[in-house]
Every structure is written in structure tokens, then in C-alpha cells.
């Protein structure tokens, strides 16, 4: 293959944002007639690389050549002109225009200065037929079609442009199985006609099904380029998360925890059966007993947060049931969940947790105040007591209740958000990445706290990308893969490697 010139060759690419190196010395090659998967966890730099290639970001250093010609893209338009076409997860077409208008937008055939609508119709029909999509009416409004069809229409547009490179960024994340198959048929078809396809997806199985080659990124750096058939799922995962099998095996195992077991006759606090939501996750069967810590393991984007959001009512489930203490319940909103004594610390502290311009005090008592309603203000004396108590218990610094929370460090913000839920005395506490981005000291404190809370009888759902951490704190581990729960493991001497095998292997 070495004598063939790659369609796209990116060499030593670096892009930095204030305080972060998003990409650092990354090489990437894309050949004609292949489906190339770009792999890596969230934050590994996949989107940044794509945006460099599509001209959304300007590269700080490195070179990009397309068909042997060096290029420097500073706008998406320049990249498109070079034959690179992108289909995003959220379709970027105009829903209020018709299918044919979208396919030919900006390139309508003209006759004597005005648009030749007959030509538009016939060219659209031709390209749809080429992709075996003739069941789509070119004159129908785009918005009347499902997301899957809209994506196919976006692909049809790139075919019509005669794109040499097609970038598909998470195209399958909101499609069901049939729609994925239809999409894959079109992708294979294009590949066989010589289009170079860059495919990004969180779904491991789909990547193995469709891709010929993959490039793995981690923390903005290149890990390597591999032929898909040569790379086992296991080694792919370890490359993505950056741990060798050998090194993992050598890691000391945290002592297996012995705590309230879920013996017969004990009712779980929460029991989900077949829980799911269209376009999100499906088939979640999970019970959590009082005093138990259940960890969710799985790659980033596998559907861990989505499960947490269903449990908390942040998203409404549209299939399956939830039982709380044995009684069937519908959790329609966070408010209902809180009334049922469930608390949820979101992984996105800034957007979904902090009320940045309010004080530590206001933030800490917010959930409690919300459930009391606005009319019954928690007396200042009680607020002061609670705040003082938790500032001390969680060692929140600065120990100033009147500091604005946005001025605290990440770890201390996280502690305040934890305290926000602890003061409501939840029976189930959902912690989504509670230790992400905080220093090691605060991290250990939070892990200890989780242990202690469970010992006091609280049910805890613990989500973390760090498998070691999940193993350290959990009694039981639910493995999430490709938006579904695939296994449940009791944490008695399980190793990180065992869990990774399950993630790689699929259902057991």
C-alpha cells in the first residue's frame, strides 16, 4: 500500500487551546476506498482532528496534504472545495427545505439565470437512485424524514458534490439497528466506488463491522494506526484507555469489599427492568440494594450517563419499568426523583451542577430549598449550621460560605455539589464521574466518603471512567457497552482485566 498516495495525509498536527494541547504531533492517513475509524475516548482529540481537517480549526503546526497537494484550511468552505465532505451527528441541513433543495443547495443547475427545477429534480433522483434510496420523494420536506434518512440525504449531497473524502461523525448514535444497516450498506457502496471514508463512533461493534483500518488517539496524542482485522477488541480498549495488559495485571487489587449483601428477602431500593429510551439506551436491568455501591463500567459514551439520567428522571424513559422499594413508580422529572429520595451529581459540573454566581451557601442548600418550595425558606440559622457542618466534614476550602462557588477549585466545587445532595439525605445517590478533574487528595476523600455513606445504608450508583476506581468502591459492577447493559459482575476479586474482557467481548 505504500506506493499509493493517501487521499488525505496529516503530519505532525498540533492544535492548542488556552491551557490545553488538544492535539500534539498527530499523524493521520486516509486512503482511497477504505473505511477508516478514528478511535479514542471523549477528549482524546477525535473531534479536534476532524475539525482541523474540515477547516473549522486552524492548525498551529504540521501539514495537511489532500491528493498530494499541501493545503491550509482556514474555513470550512476551503475544505469542502478540496473535496472533503462531513456529515455530523446533528444533521446540518435545512429542515424547512425540500430534499432536492438540500441535496443541491448552492449548486442548483441554472437555465438563463434562474433555477432549472426540472434539472434539480432529475439530478436528485439520479443520485438517490445511485444510493438505492429511490423511495425518498425529492420534493418532500426534509423535516418530515427521520434522522436516519436525513443523514442519508446528507450523504447523498456529498455524493452529488463528488466528494473524495466523506467524514461521518457519530452517524449512528441516534439510529436503530435497521437504520444502521441501511447506513452501512450505503457506506460500503461508496467505499467500493473509491470514496475515502472517515468514520467516528462510540460503538465498538459497529467499528469492527464497518472499518478496514483504525487510528487510535489518546489525550491528544497518536497511539497508532492499525488494520482492524489485526487488532483485537481487547488491545483496542487498552490502547484507548492507555493501560497495557501486563501493567494492568500487575496492579495491586484493592481488597474485595464485604458489606451488606443482597441476600434473599431484602428489597432493592431501586429495581429497573428493561429500562430504555429511544435513541439513548435500552434494556437496562439493574437493581441497587440499600447499603450497596453499584459501579457502572464501560467506555465513555457507552451510555453510562444516559442510564443515570433515566434513573433520576432527567430524561424520561419510554420503555421498561422502575420499582422503588418494591413499588412501581414513574420518575417523570428530577423533582419526582428527589421527592423519592434520589440524588444525582452530574458529570458536567459547570453546566449541570453549579449555579456559578451564587454563594457556596446558596448552592449547598439549593436542592433542599427546592424541595421545600420557595415559600418556606430554610432559616438562616439552620443554613449556617448545615453549611458549617459540611464545610468541615468535607474539608471545603476556602471555608467561607459567602464565597461565590465559581471561584472555588474544581475539587471543592465537587464537594459542595456532593454536600448539596447529602443534606437532602437521599436513599440513592447517583455519582457520575465525581472525581473527574480533581486532585488526588480530594479524590481519595470522595472515595472514602462513598464507602462511609454506603456503610450507613445509602444505595450508591457510581460512574467513573477509571476502572480501578470503580473496582475499589463498588460491590457490584454493571458493564455498559454500545448503549445497553451487557453484564453484571460481583466484585469479589475481579481484576481490571476481567472487566475489560467483558467490555471487549460483549454479552456473557
Amino acid at each position, binding site marked *: 500500500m505504500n506506493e499509493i498516495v493517501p487521499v488525505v495525509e496529516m503530519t505532525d498536527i498540533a492544535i492548542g487551546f488556552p491551557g490545553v494541547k488538544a492535539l500534539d504531533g498527530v499523524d493521520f492517513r486516509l486512503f482511497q476506498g477504505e473505511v477508516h475509524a478514528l478511535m479514542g475516548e471523549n477528549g482524546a482529540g477525535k473531534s479536534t482532528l476532524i475539525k482541523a481537517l474540515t477547516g473549522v480549526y486552524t492548525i498551529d503546526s504540521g501539514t495537511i496534504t489532500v491528493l498530494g497537494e499541501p493545503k491550509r484550511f482556514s474555513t470550512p468552505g476551503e475544505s469542502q472545495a478540496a473535496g472533503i465532505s462531513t456529515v455530523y451527528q446533528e444533521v446540518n441541513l435545512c429542515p424547512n427545505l425540500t430534499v432536492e433543495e438540500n441535496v443541491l443547495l448552492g449548486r442548483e443547475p441554472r437555465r438563463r439565470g434562474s433555477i432549472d427545477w426540472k434539472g434539480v429534480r432529475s439530478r436528485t433522483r439520479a443520485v438517490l437512485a445511485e444510493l438505492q434510496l429511490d423511495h425518498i420523494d425529492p420534493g418532500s420536506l426534509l423535516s418530515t424524514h427521520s434522522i436516519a434518512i436525513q443523514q442519508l440525504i446528507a450523504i447523498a449531497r456529498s455524493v452529488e458534490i463528488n466528494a473524495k473524502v466523506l467524514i461521518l461523525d457519530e452517524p449512528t448514535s441516534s439510529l436503530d439497528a435497521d437504520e444502521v444497516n441501511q447506513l452501512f450498506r450505503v457506506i460500503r457502496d461508496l467505499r467500493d466506488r473509491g470514496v475515502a471514508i472517515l468514520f467516528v463512533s462510540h460503538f465498538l461493534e459497529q467499528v469492527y463491522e464497518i472499518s478496514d483500518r483504525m487510528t487510535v488517539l489518546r489525550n491528544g496524542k497518536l497511539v497508532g494506526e492499525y488494520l482492524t482485522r489485526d487488532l483485537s477488541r481487547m488491545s483496542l480498549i487498552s490502547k484507548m484507555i492507555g493501560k497495557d495488559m501486563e501493567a494492568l495485571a500487575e496492579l495491586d487489587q484493592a481488597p474485595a469489599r464485604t458489606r451488606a449483601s443482597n441476600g434473599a428477602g431484602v428489597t432493592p431500593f431501586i429495581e429497573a427492568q428493561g429500562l430504555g429510551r429511544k435513541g439513548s439506551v435500552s434494556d437496562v436491568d439493574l437493581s441497587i440494594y440499600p447499603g450497596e455501591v453499584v459501579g457502572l463500567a464501560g467506555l465513555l459514551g457507552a451510555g453510562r450517563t444516559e442510564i443515570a439520567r433515566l434513573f433520576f428522571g432527567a430524561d424520561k424513559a419510554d420503555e421498561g419499568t422502575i420499582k422503588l422499594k418494591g413499588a412501581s413508580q414513574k420518575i417523570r422529572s428530577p423533582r419526582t426523583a428527589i421527592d423519592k429520595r434520589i440524588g444525582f451529581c*452530574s458529570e458536567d459540573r459547570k453546566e449541570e451542577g453549579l*449555579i456559578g454566581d451564587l454563594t457556596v451557601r*446558596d448552592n449547598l442548600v439549593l436542592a433542599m430549598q427546592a424541595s421545600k418550595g420557595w415559600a418556606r425558606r430554610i432559616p438562616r440559622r439552620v443554613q449556617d449550621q448545615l453549611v458549617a457542618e459540611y464545610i468541615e466534614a468535607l474539608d471545603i476550602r476556602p471555608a467561607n460560605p459567602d464565597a461565590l462557588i465559581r471561584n472555588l477549585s474544581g475539587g471543592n466545587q465537587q464537594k459542595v455539589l456532593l454536600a448539596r445532595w447529602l443534606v437532602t439525605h437521599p436513599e440513592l445517590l447517583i455519582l457520575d464521574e465525581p472525581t473527574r478533574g480533581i486532585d488526588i487528595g480530594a479524590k481519595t476523600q470522595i472515595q472514602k466518603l462513598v464507602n462511609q455513606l454506603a456503610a450507613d445504608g445509602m444505595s450508591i450508583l457510581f460512574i467513573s471512567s477509571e476502572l480501578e476506581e470503580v473496582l475499589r468502591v463498588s460491590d457490584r459492577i454493571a458493564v455498559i457497552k454500545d448503549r445497553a447493559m451487557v453484564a453484571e459482575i460481583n466484585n469479589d476479586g475481579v481484576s481490571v482485566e476481567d472487566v475489560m474482557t467483558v467490555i471487549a467481548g460483549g454479552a456473557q
Partner: protein
Amino acid sequence: MKSLLKHRLAWPVIALAALLLLNQVFRPDFMSLRMQDGHLYGSLIDIMRNGAPTILIALGMTLVIATRGIDLSVGAVVAIAGAASCAYIAASPEPGSPVTAATAVLIAVVAGLALGVWNGFLVSTIGVQPIIATLVLMTAGRGVAQLITGGQIVSVSNDSYKSIGAGYLFTLPISILITAAVFALAAVLTRRTALGTLIEAVGINPVASRLAGLRARNIIWIVYVFSAVCAAIAGLMISSNVTAADANNAGLYIEMDAILAVVIGGTSLAGGRYTLVGTVVGAFIIQTLTTTVYTLGIPPEVTLVFKALVVITVCLLQAPKARNLLSRFKAAPKPAAKEAAKEKVAI
């Protein structure tokens, strides 16, 4: 001194003081108050009395803006409230009795309540953007007011009704007392309960507020109802002051003055932290400006431009960017750099 200048109310208060001082220089008797027939008179009293409807409406507007909303319909509500009460008095068998006046007031307030519920419904339940939702009533409301008055200016003669806008109690104009009472009520309602904090939480981060279990819908509803009731009371004041309801001109453009008062007072249109005191100061600035224009003898053609200049100056003084520039300009470069470095460490 420096920390005082950093206070969020510092620049509005300074601007107000400067305006008052300017007037004092050009008219030495400006600040003087005198008693006459047991009533207090003076330019300051006039400013407060004339500014009362704007202050009232701006108070309601402050809470609406704090939730990231805006209420454009207040002017229309002023017109409807005035029209409804005056039409009732004019049509009643005893147009001069205090009971009739009381009923008219009740009708206006209930009308305000209903209109607020409508706005709140559109914004919180249907999810219409606030600017569009209240634009509906802003447009339709004047029409409704005209329907009530039959397209005429309805004059009434009822001494009790007239006293709302033009009467005196304890030597002070009643309109000032009403405004003070509403201000006190709003302060107590928001700061003695948790309403104020929850309004700010919804305004600062709606997503996080929802996940913390806040029922934003109820809170948003409350602020629109409060805003409309304030506007209805302002409508009573305006129509009572001239003992007539003018569906076309009562409260015309008052929403603009109210929004300006809120912004000058230091509450951001982006929502979040708000200050009722700041809003009152802002409303005073606007009213004092009008007075200043007369005092200085500025020709009417220039009036609006002059107003705009003062407003933009106050707003600029509050903007973080302008403040930074200013402090760099004032302080010697070295200590300023040190201070900035210190601040970073603290964060």
C-alpha cells in the same frame, strides 16, 4: 474607598448624585423642600412622584429579567388597567362614591393578575420565548384597552380615585407611598422567602436548577404575575393622575424606561443576580434626567440624545471591560499588574 467603588451600586448612585448636583448648580433652590397646606413640595418630591409608575413597573421587570425573561407588555397592561377602572367608574350609577373607586381599583388589579397569568402561561407552560410571548399582549393589549373605552378618552370625576395619583397622605403624595409599599413587599417577598435565591438560580443556570429539583415553571409564573400587577397599579396611578383613561397613550414606551432602569441599576439582561434597590436608583436617574433637561434648558430636539448619552455612560461604567480599562488608566501600571496576579492566585 476602592472597595466602595467596586460595589455594584456604586456607579448608579454616583451618576444619580452627579445629576442632582448638576441641577443644584443651575437652580440653587433645587434641593429645597417646603410645606404648604400640610403637603410637602419641591423638585425632589416631583421627581419621585412622576417617577412612581416607572419605578413600580421596573420593580416587576427586575424579577422578570432575573429569570432571563423580559416583559414588553407592561405598557399595554397600564392602558388596560386604566381603561377598565375608568370605564367602570364612568358607567356606574354612583360615579363619585368611594365604594365605586375601590371596586374600580379591584377590577384593575384583578385584570393585571389575569394578564400576568396569561404571560406566565405562554412563557412557562407553552415555552414561548419571553420577548415573543409578551409582544403578543403588548400589541393586543392596546386594542383591548380601546375596546373597553370604545375608542374614546374616558374622563371620570371621583375624588377618591383621583387621590391615588394626585392625593396626599402624611404630607407625602400617595403615589410615592404606594410605590414604597410595593417595593417593601417585593423586598420581603423575595428576600424573606427563598423566592429571590430561586429566581436567581433559574436565571443563572436553568439546567442545573432543574437537576436540583427546582420547579422553574412556578417561579417564572410568579414573576410575570407580579410584573403585570405592578403595571396595573401603575396604570391606576397614571389614569387617576389625569382622571381619564387614554387607551392609546397611557404608559406608551414605559416598558423601555423600565428596562433601562433595570439595566442602569445593575441587573444584567442575561439574568441571574438582581438588585431591587439598584432598579429604584436607575428609575430615579431616568426621571431626574427628564427634569435636568428642563432645568438646563436643553432644547427638546436634543433631549433624547442627551438621555441616551447619560444612559450609555452609566452602562459603560458598569461593564467589566470598561472598568478594567479605567482602573488601568488610573493606577500606575506596576501595582495593577501585581494585583491582577494576586487575583489569579486567589482563584
